[in-house]
């Protein structure tokens, strides 16, 4: 296939225009075309949140080469940040000015707090690599979740396993994202409104990651991933660059978490279990570590597949056998696991890898040719 046309400025413009239109009408196609269209839009909203998470983790794992198995903790920090300041649960104890802060400020607070937690994780693991790093980050993720589970005593901060309820929706640009809005003869339901909101932040995060990738910092991360000693000899401050990767990745997770809390209206520690960390890592690895389009693809596949299984396999079974023989929900992890194994065997560089990574995996072919 020839994609050369896509590289020209005109081609790029047309591609982006088409992509923009598709993304703009997507929720309406879904609500118009499917019986349970709203559930689909909701699934897409979650996919977008996962894209943000995967891009954040991609900074830590893909760029800087630091394996993080507790990434969901930052999502949790962002979510609880939003929940605590925007629900009646804690507001009685908070000063009045801290109630329902303006939306953008709220996101900054969530990003900053998550970033601080990123530093908190990063500082003790500066000297660790590989397996050891993975174990410590895994522990960190669990610690955050267990804290949230137990911080209902002696002072009730997180409301423990019951979680926090009645979280205010986003109020932004004069719109209450919790109520339907009439515009241009269309009814924008909550799922639609949130779709556009999350999409906007998703695009912003994609833009930031793209800029980072080709910056001096991005190259320093690559050097760090390849060889710490040589990177140090290039004049790169290993400590700061590592901490920056942790903090930056964490703050993306924080923003995503805050959006999640406001969208869901409810948070509890159950949403932030180890399995979620592993899922996000799978998205990054499956799609193609360090490659933005790949990571986005991975996030979409991993988060949408269960919905497809539920909505497509079940009706198919009912049509074929007259009843549900197998519940795909129970088989989800099995199918997923098999798919991961297959991909790691056949295409270890991921579905849509960067040129660099594809080359690393085929280095020997290249050596043979040279």
């Amino acid at each position, binding site marked *: 296939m020839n994609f050369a046309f896509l590289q020209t400025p005109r081609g790029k413009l047309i591609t982006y225009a088409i992509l923009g239109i598709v993304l703009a009408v997507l929720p309406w196609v879904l609500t118009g075309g499917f019986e349970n269209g709203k559930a689909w839009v909701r699934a897409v909203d979650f996919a977008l949140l996962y894209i943000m998470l995967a891009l954040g983790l991609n900074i830590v794992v893909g760029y800087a080469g630091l394996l993080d198995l507790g990434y969901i903790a930052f999502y949790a920090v962002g979510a609880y940040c939003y929940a605590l300041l925007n629900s009646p649960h804690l507001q009685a104890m908070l000063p009045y000015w801290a109630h329902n802060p303006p939306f953008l400020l709220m996101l900054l607070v969530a990003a900053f707090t998550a970033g601080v937690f990123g530093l908190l994780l990063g500082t003790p693991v500066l000297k660790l690599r590989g397996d050891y790093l993975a174990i410590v980050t895994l522990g960190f993720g669990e610690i955050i979740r267990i804290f949230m589970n137990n911080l209902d005593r002696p002072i009730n901060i997180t409301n423990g396993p019951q979680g926090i309820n009645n979280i205010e929706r986003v109020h932004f640009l004069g719109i209450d994202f919790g109520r339907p809005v009439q515009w241009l003869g269309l009814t924008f339901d909550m799922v639609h409104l949130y779709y556009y909101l999350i999409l906007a932040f998703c695009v912003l995060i994609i833009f930031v990651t793209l800029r980072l990738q080709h910056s*001096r910092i991005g*190259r*320093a991360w*690559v*050097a760090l991933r*390849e*060889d710490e*000693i*040589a*990177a*140090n*000899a*290039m*004049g*790169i*401050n*290993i400590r700061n660059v590592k901490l920056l990767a942790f903090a930056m990745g964490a703050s993306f997770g924080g923003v995503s978490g805050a959006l999640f809390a406001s969208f869901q209206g409810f948070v509890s520690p159950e949403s932030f279990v180890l399995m979620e960390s592993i899922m996000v890592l799978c998205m990054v690895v499956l799609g193609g570590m360090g490659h933005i389009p790949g990571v986005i693809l991975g996030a979409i596949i991993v988060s949408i597949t269960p919905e497809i299984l539920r909505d497509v396999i079940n009706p198919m079974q009912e049509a074929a056998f007259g009843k549900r023989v197998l519940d795909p929900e129970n088989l989800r992890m099995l199918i997923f696991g098999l798919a991961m194994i297959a991909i790691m065997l056949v295409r270890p560089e991921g579905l849509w890898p960067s040129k*660099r990574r594809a*080359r*690393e995996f085929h*280095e020997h072919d*290249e*050596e043979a040719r*040279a």
Partner: protein
Amino acid sequence: MSEALLQVKDLKVAYGGIHAVKGIDLEIGHGELVALIGANGAGKTTTLKTLVGMIKPAGGEILFDGQPTARLASYQYVGRGLVLVPEGRGVFPRLTVAENLLMGAHVRNDKPGIAHDIERVYHLFPRLKERQAQLAGTLSGGEQQMLAIGRAIMSRPKLLLLDEPSMGLAPIIVQKIFEIIRMIAAEGVTMLLVEQNAKLALETANRGYVMESGRITLADSAANLLANEAIQKAYLGE
């Protein structure tokens, strides 16, 4: 002579209880090419690693450009202009030649200057230009050495430290590398060259130091060292 670029006074380095460098004095003037020769285990590489902060000295003082270096963190040396091309080269094997060169310029922030210097490196090493899109790990040993030197030049060093640039290379490649070392020296880059190939090193350098089990035993002009009978016996195999 104006103030030396590098002054080392009574430098001592120890690994645990073992003293690898037992109090040496070195001086390198601006624009000089100085060779440091000696047998295996004499402490040459240790000395270089200490000069760039990879090892902390046990005693003594290092002045670079008139400033003591003792309080610098190891990554700050490059910014000051003190750069080591390590033994075994230390290129990034999974990055391309061009990316490796860019890494060398990490401490700089002037885009046009960096682009200009990349051309300069390609001019010195036409081989690297041919292979700029190739992964550094797929280069031959000689090419990797060229890349390591080129990458070091990219940081615009005031003092370039070369550790065994001839190691493991075919004689014809070694000749080529030394030709380039002379060219770089001719451009005014100050260099300290550590070599086992004493003859070649002394033929290239202005001055030389001879190191034996952690001490400097001789310091003289390169020509005098080449003519010295004891040196000829011990290192030049004549």
